[in-house]
């Protein structure tokens, strides 16, 4: 009985003291509109479309991002230019649906679609949350600076024939008998 009382009392008093001593611990709160919080580079925020190092659009309109998207917020249409490069005719992200899961970024084979640390995307009108390709496309390479899909891929475009890509051998002539 006595030990029970003693243990209970010490436990309660120690608890009270421990909680009280938090009075001189600095608060964790970041007062956001006054102080900008540090956003980590891999934070999943506003989605952008990046360009390759040559300044061309990276997106090849493969639709993998739209397929991966769990809330179906990405819509796009493929088209081709005269050189044979694929690019999206339109690319539309409805940010009022987007849940910033980053699946589109994981699915993208060309590192075109990327998530950025920007989170200040509030709008007064819902229609303003639908972003078109002009709004999404940035002038830089985003997180991956050296990657250029058409330079490493075997696809033939204007100015680059089959076998001319980086690390690519000239295609085997299957009709030749020579080894």
């Amino acid at each position, binding site marked *: 009985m006595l030990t029970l009382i003693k243990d209970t009392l010490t436990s309660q008093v120690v608890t*009270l003291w*421990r909680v*009280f001593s*938090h*009075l001189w611990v600095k*608060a964790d709160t970041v007062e956001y509109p006054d102080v900008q919080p540090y956003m980590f580079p891999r934070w999943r925020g506003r989605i952008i479309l990046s360009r390759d190092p040559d300044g061309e659009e990276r997106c090849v309109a493969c639709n993998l991002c739209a397929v991966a998207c769990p809330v179906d917020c990405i819509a796009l249409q493929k088209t081709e230019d005269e050189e044979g490069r694929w690019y999206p005719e339109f690319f539309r992200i409805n940010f009022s649906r987007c849940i910033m899961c980053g699946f589109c970024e994981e699915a993208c084979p060309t590192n075109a679609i990327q998530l950025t640390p920007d989170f200040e995307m509030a709008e007064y009108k819902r229609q303003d949350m639908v972003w078109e390709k002009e709004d999404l496309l940035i002038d830089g390479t985003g997180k991956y600076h050296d990657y250029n899909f058409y330079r490493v891929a075997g696809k033939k475009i204007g100015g680059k024939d089959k076998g001319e890509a980086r690390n690519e051998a000239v295609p085997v002539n299957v009709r030749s008998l020579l080894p």
Partner: protein
Amino acid sequence: MTFEVGSGLSIGVILATVILVAAMLIWVERRLLSFWQERLGPNRVGPFGLLQVVADMIKIFTKEDWVPPFADKFSFVLAPAIIMTVILMSFSVIPFAPGVGVVDSNIGVLFVLAMASLGAYSVMLAGLSSDNKYALLGALRAAAQMISYEVFMGISILGVVALSGTFNLREIVLAQEENGWYVIPQFIGFVIFLIAGVAESHRLPFDIPEAEQEICAGYHTEYSGMKFGMFFVGEYLGLVLIASLITVLFFGGWLGPAFLPPIVWFSLKVFVFIAFFILLRAAIPRPRYDQLMSYGWLFLLPASLLNLLITGVIILSTS
């Protein structure tokens, strides 16, 4: 008009101050809690967030004052009025400082205990008239809690009454001027009264009738607007009342070194106890209500009886 015990001016000033302090406690509690939880708390409205109370009051006054169609209208409206009235009545016997008070009643201690018991009607009426299972559970728990703490709450302060020989709160304070603060001879009584006071004002860890996590605010689940506000302010008024009672009964009321005026000493002591109550809320988890009942009946009631017995023996043997 003069400022003396029982004058109209004095009553008005005390009423206004007490209600204002109770409203400000909303801000004090949120701020202190947040400091103990390494947050900042409300600091946006006005300097240090002091005007948060004004914002809360504007919100609560402009909310829809809704009575559910299935509720018993009369007692539903009556219940929040009871708790406010009863606790404000209790303040009438508190001696704040020499010459400051509403009435010097010879039955001050008994009056406060009676009013505290009446306050239970408010909770039970609110729970019954709401016709809501959570509210009913809250009222049930309030009744269970009341019968388990009110007994030893009364007995725990009998030691002080026996030492000072009076039920008059002002004379109890004056008796402490000669004998020293009663917290020293009556330490067990003080601890028991503190625990009973927490239960009386429905504060954590004994906020069993309104446990938010279990029965979603208990007896005031169905209340909204100003009627909820009255319960809310009533709870803080109860907190101030218990802190004042502890100050008066055990910590010498307004007594203190002369470099500060008596009313400042009183306010300081009351604030320390209010801060302690808020610390309890931040630190101690809530027991089950059967745990509170067995704790009350099997431990605190015998302890308070024993305390009274020993006090009586000492008084008789020394006189």
